[in-house]
């Protein structure tokens, strides 16, 4: 299973005075089981890029292959693609429309034309995955907190049982607790259900903790693509793109300058702690 993008160009409002070149010759391959962090400054084209992956927008030029099949080729089922590649938009809670939570989560699988029992089974399973038990089923979305609403909306996509889950800034506007809950659930989906994850974010700290591969976008182009350690070595360049490496990267570089013999590749707080302790013990 893979999604392959070849030279994706997308231009908004092409025949006006202000065409916006949102993605610029983006070529990428997304493999099975990856946990990808897609980062970039606001307006760098992240949201535009991910909408290509399930055929919601058609590139101005370029090709998209899902399992080596051209998604705009003859006989390709867009419906199937959308069920395999689940896309959770930014502020997904704004799309809730049913009067109770269970019915709303049923919307996706129902559209796939599944039998009623299967629809309900999937919906309940998806709600369990995001940590919402039976007591929530009958509630109206309006009775929930912001973080809970968002989890319901994510369940709405999970209920289609996608193989790839794309989340566009899933933590935007949440408090630290809500943010951690969502990120930990995403991590669980990746580890326990072997789902391929693409997490869009502009917070390095968030993605550094979970992603095994980082893709950095700037002005519609892919600037870096590699493991977090590799990407954060370019922390000076990241700054010129309006991004910042995780705080610990700066700490490690500062320590190094003071003559500490630390390994600069630590990217999370716990890695940094280990590394500093190691150096202290050696002294």
């Amino acid at each position, binding site marked *: 299973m893979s999604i392959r993008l070849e030279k994706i160009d997308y231009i908004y409002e092409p025949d006006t005075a202000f065409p916006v070149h949102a993605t610029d010759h983006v070529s990428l391959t997304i493999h099975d089981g990856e946990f990808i962090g897609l980062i970039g400054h606001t307006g760098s084209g992240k949201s535009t890029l991910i909408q290509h992956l399930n055929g919601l927008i058609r590139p101005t030029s370029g090709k998209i292959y899902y399992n080596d099949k051209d998604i705009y080729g003859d006989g390709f089922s867009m419906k199937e693609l*959308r069920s395999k590649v689940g896309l959770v938009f930014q502020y997904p809670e704004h*799309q809730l*429309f049913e009067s109770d939570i269970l019915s709303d989560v049923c919307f996706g699988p129902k559209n796939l034309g599944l039998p009623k029992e299967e629809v309900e089974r999937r919906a309940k399973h998806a709600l369990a995955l995001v940590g919402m038990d039976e007591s929530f089923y009958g509630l109206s979305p309006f009775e929930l907190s912001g973080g809970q609403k968002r989890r319901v909306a994510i369940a709405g*996509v999970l209920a289609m049982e996608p193989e790839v889950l794309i989340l566009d800034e899933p933590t935007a506007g949440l408090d630290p607790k809500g943010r951690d809950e969502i990120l930990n659930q995403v991590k669980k989906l990746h580890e326990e259900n072997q789902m391929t994850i693409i997490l869009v974010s502009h917070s390095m700290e968030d993605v550094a903790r979970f992603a095994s591969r980082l893709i950095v976008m700037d002005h519609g182009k892919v600037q870096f693509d590699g493991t977090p350690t590799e990407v954060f070595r370019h922390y000076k360049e990241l700054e010129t793109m309006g991004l910042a490496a995780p705080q610990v990267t700066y700490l490690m570089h500062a320590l190094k300058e003071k003559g500490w013999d630390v390994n600069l590749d630590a990217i999370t707080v716990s890695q940094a702690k280990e590394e500093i302790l190691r150096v202290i013990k050696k002294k």
Partner: protein
Amino acid sequence: MIRDITLGQYYPIGSPIHRLDPRTKLAGTLIFIIALFVAKGLWAYIIATIFLGAVIRVSKVPLSYMVRGLKSIVILLLFSVVFNIFFIRDGVVLVQIGFITITAGGLIQAAYMAVRLIYLIIGSTLMTLTTTPNDLTDGLEKSLGFMKKIHVPVHEIAMMMSIALRFIPILIEETDKIMKAQMARGADFESGNLIQKAKAMVPLLVPLFISAFRRASDLAMAMEARCYHGGDGRTKMKPLRYQKNDKIAYGILLFFLVLMILLRLVG
């Protein structure tokens, strides 16, 4: 698609038309509309075309931008053209099949009608494209200020209008987003019969209404937080004042209107 509705969208670019006083543009639009209804005969339409073309040129707004806005009235246009072709019997009969009669007069009338409608839409679109919603409210409020004497809440009406105009593009964008989000969940807005299509709109309309209410209440809150209390005793940071260009514009507009009236009287 729905993004093609250009009415109510401001096209931010500097041009002499953009810099005109909003009252001039409002009056200009009104005069242009009146002139269109006065227009009679080929010459009148040629002059109206030149006039509109010149204004569009000076405004620097690309023509394609306005033509896109016309797509939304295609049905109305077709309807009125067909109506005119079949029901006006005037002049030489060109085609006669059964009860259908097409006359030369009917065809000409239909063509004039279509041109008139198209120009009407382009003319009013041009005004909103070149005037910020804020200017538009100011202009409306000041032009209609005399109605305050008969207790018409002019300020409130102007404010509501400008907010409504401003909300059109926002809601269009929102519709686009919600549609995509539901399509990602397998929703299908295109196929099916009329009833199925209407049912498919529910997942779009409910979130859209909720979002409109949320935005409205946010806006109300933001206005109150800045002590907005309606029009009484409110002064302007930039009071509207006519400039030299406005006088020239009024001159041209009057000349245009008089010309159209004369052509009608002569023709």
